[in-house]
């Protein structure tokens, strides 16, 4: 019973803060609403016995990625962004597309059938602790994807540095260390 109530609270907060995040005019408020959303997302991960991912959600998403967004928001001017138009010809068209997609996907849910069960039952995970279980899976079965993920982060680090670098009158290679905020955030 408590679990259901907790899920209902988290779901309500996620939907409400998500809707506010896409409808508020001030981008800083949007980012703060997404922060609230991420915290409740971490709560939901806890109900799914994914403690490590809940911690990663808060540390990486709320701690690093959203701070990166806030940095960029403070670098670009806020006043110019207050006047907005729709991405599709009419804003209502976009809303109708999203609502139609939601109704379609929700209608499909009852037809979903669970597949074959794996070997990591709740008891098995509890025996070796969740972090160790996830680490075993990551460093054995998914070793190559893990290395590629590290490479992607390196590419993002270099790309962020190069893109945000201020052009010093056509001078060359990365001598200006000043706009390095983006690279630092990623390396966390």
């Amino acid at each position, binding site marked *: 019973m408590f*679990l259901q109530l907790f*899920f209902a609270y988290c779901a309500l907060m*996620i*939907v409400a803060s*998500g809707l506010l*995040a*896409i409808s508020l005019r001030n*981008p800083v408020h*949007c980012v703060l609403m*997404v922060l609230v*959303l*991420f915290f409740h*997302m971490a709560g*939901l991960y806890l109900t*799914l016995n*994914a403690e490590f*991912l809940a911690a*990663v*959600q808060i540390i990486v*998403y709320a701690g*690093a990625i959203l701070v990166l*967004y806030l940095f960029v*928001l403070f670098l670009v*001017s806020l006043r*110019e*962004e207050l006047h907005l*138009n*729709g*991405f599709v010809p009419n804003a209502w068209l*976009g809303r109708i*597309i*999203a*609502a139609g997609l*939601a109704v379609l*996907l929700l209608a499909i*849910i009852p037809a*979903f059938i*669970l*597949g*074959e*069960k*794996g*070997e*990591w039952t709740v008891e*098995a995970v509890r025996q070796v602790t969740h972090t160790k*279980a*996830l680490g075993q899976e*990551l460093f054995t079965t*998914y070793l190559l*994807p*893990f290395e590629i*993920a590290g490479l*992607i*982060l390196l*590419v993002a680090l270099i*790309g962020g540095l*190069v*893109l*945000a670098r201020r052009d010093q009158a056509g001078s060359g290679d990365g001598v200006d260390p000043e706009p390095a905020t983006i690279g630092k955030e*990623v390396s966390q």
Partner: protein
Amino acid sequence: MIPLSWYMALAIILFCIGVCGFLTRRNVIVMFLSIELMLNGVNLNLVALSHFLDSMRGQAFTFFIITVAAAEAAIGLGIAIALYRSRRSVHVDTINLLKG
């Protein structure tokens, strides 16, 4: 015990909120935030399925999705800063140099 369909319904609603934000907003940074919302919807689905299927696969995938989201945010916001430096605006409709 919470049934799987609740998690999937919430993930779908979160994903569609992200789609709605991506389609209706024009500010590049809020569009990136909408993409984060969509990725979070997918993450929730993966974690819920990995819990109900007694498997670690979904959580490993979530790990990689978080990595890619961080990389995407860094590159996208770097592009936003570069665009803002050269055009003094982050609205998509004013960025039509490649349109011909």
